[in-house]
C-alpha cells in the first residue's frame, strides 16, 4: 500500500520538477505561464494523493481558472519575451539556491519521518479534539470546514481581510476605465471572440450555467464534502472570466457590473465580522457561534459556519472578478 503511494508520489514529483525546470529555461513567457498552470494542476493531483482534498480543490480552481488567466492578461499588456539571462545573474543565484538546498536538507533530518502515525503532530491532543470532539461540538463531517470556519475562525477572518486589501490595492493601481474605453463588443482586445470562434461561443454558453451552479453547490456542500466559500468564490469568478473572455468585457460588465462588485467586496468581509459582533452582543466571545443559539449550540455552529462561509464566498468572488476586470480593462485602454 505504502509502496504504491511512493511510486505515484515520485512520478508526480518528476513531472513537477520537469515543469519547474521548463519554467526556468524557456524564454517565451507565454510558455512559462502555461507551464505554471500545468505545474499547479500537478500540485493539485499530489494534494489529492496526500489526502488534502480541500486544498486540491482550491488549487484546482485557482491554478486552472484564475492564476493562468491573470498571468496571460499581464503578458498581453507587457512583453512576452524575456532577455537572455546573463551568467552574472545566474551563477550567484545558483550558488545561493544550492546553499539553501543544503541547509534545508540538513534541517530535514530533524523532521519526523514522513506519514508516521507516531509523529508528534498526530499525537497532539488537538488532533483528537479536531477529529473526534468536533462531531459533538460542531457536527460537521468535513473537519477542514469546521476548523476553518469555527475553531480558527479568527484566522480566516484575517485571510479574508488580506484578500479584500489586495483587491482594493489592485483596483487602486489599475484603476477604472477612462472615457468610452469600456469596450464595445467586437473591438479587440476587450471585445469577445467574434465570428470565427462560433463553436467556442456556443459551448461556452452551454458551460456557463453549470459552472455557476457548481459554484453554488460547492458553497453549500462544503460542510459534507470538499468545498466551502474560498473554492466557491473562485469557481464563480472563473465562470464570469469565461464569459468575459468569450463575449467581451462590455457584455460581462453589463451583466455583473463593477459597481455591484465594489459593494459586494466589503460586504462579505462585513458579514463575516458582523457575525463576530453579533456573537459578542449575544454574550459570547468574538466568533463564538454557540452564542447564536444558546439552547442548541450545534445549531448555532451550523448557522455561524453558513453565514461566515457565505461572507468568504462573496468577498473572494467579488475580489477575483474585480481583479480580472482590472487587467482586462487595462487592455481595453492601451
Amino acid at each position: 500500500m505504502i509502496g504504491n503511494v511512493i511510486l505515484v508520489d515520485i512520478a508526480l514529483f518528476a513531472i513537477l520538477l520537469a515543469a519547474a525546470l521548463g519554467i526556468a529555461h524557456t524564454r517565451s513567457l507565454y510558455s512559462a505561464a502555461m507551464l505554471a498552470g500545468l505545474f499547479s494542476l500537478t500540485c493539485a493531483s499530489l494534494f489529492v494523493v496526500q489526502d488534502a482534498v480541500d486544498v486540491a480543490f482550491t488549487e484546482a480552481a485557482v491554478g486552472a481558472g484564475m492564476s493562468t488567466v491573470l498571468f496571460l492578461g499581464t503578458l498581453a499588456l507587457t512583453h512576452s519575451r524575456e532577455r537572455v539571462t546573463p551568467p552574472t545573474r545566474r551563477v550567484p543565484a545558483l550558488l545561493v539556491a544550492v546553499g539553501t538546498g543544503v541547509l534545508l536538507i540538513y534541517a530535514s533530518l530533524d523532521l519526523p519521518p514522513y506519514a508516521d502515525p507516531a509523529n508528534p503532530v498526530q499525537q497532539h491532543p488537538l488532533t483528537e479534539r479536531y477529529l473526534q470532539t468536533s462531531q459533538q461540538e460542531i457536527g460537521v463531517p468535513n473537519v477542514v470546514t469546521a476548523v476553518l470556519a469555527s475553531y480558527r475562525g479568527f484566522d480566516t477572518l484575517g485571510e479574508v481581510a488580506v484578500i479584500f486589501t489586495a483587491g482594493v490595492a489592485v483596483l487602486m493601481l489599475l484603476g477604472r476605465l477612462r472615457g468610452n474605453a469600456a469596450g464595445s463588443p467586437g473591438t479587440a482586445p476587450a471585445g469577445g471572440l467574434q465570428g470565427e470562434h462560433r463553436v467556442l461561443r456556443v459551448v461556452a454558453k452551454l458551460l456557463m450555467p453549470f459552472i455557476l451552479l457548481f459554484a453554488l453547490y460547492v458553497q453549500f456542500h462544503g460542510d459534507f464534502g470538499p468545498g466551502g466559500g474560498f473554492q466557491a468564490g473562485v469557481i464563480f469568478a472563473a465562470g464570469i472570466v469565461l464569459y468575459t473572455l468569450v463575449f467581451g468585457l462590455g457584455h460581462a460588465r453589463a451583466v455583473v457590473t463593477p459597481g455591484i462588485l465594489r459593494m459586494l467586496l466589503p460586504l462579505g468581509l462585513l458579514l463575516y465580522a458582523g457575525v463576530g459582533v453579533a456573537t459578542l452582543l449575544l454574550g459570547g466571545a468574538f466568533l463564538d457561534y454557540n452564542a447564536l443559539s444558546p439552547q442548541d449550540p450545534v445549531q448555532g455552529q451550523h448557522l455561524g459556519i453558513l453565514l461566515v462561509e457565505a461572507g468568504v464566498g462573496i468577498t473572494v468572488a467579488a475580489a477575483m472578478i474585480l481583479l480580472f476586470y482590472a487587467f482586462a480593462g487595462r487592455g481595453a485602454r492601451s
Partner: protein
Amino acid sequence: MWLALALAVLTTMALALARALLGPTLYDRILAINLFGTKTVLFIAVAGFMAGRPEFLDIALVYALINFIGTVAVLKLSHYGEFSRAEELQGDDL
C-alpha cells in the same frame, strides 16, 4: 491494478508534458497542456478510487469544467500583442 492504471495515466501526462516542453510552436504547447488537463481529471478520478473514497470526484469535476478556461484564455489573449505573429510562433525556441 489501480496502481497500474494510475501509472498509465501518469505516463500519458508525462508524454504530454514532454510535448509541452519541446514545442516547437506555441500551439503545440497549448494542445499538450490541454491534454494534460484532461489526463489530470482522469488521474484524480482514479486516485479517488485507489484511495477507496471516490466521493471526492468533485475535484475532477471542477477540472473538467475549468480546464477549458485556460485554453480559451490563451486563444483570446493571443489575438493581440506579440503572440499572434507567425514568425514569433515558428521561431519560438526553448
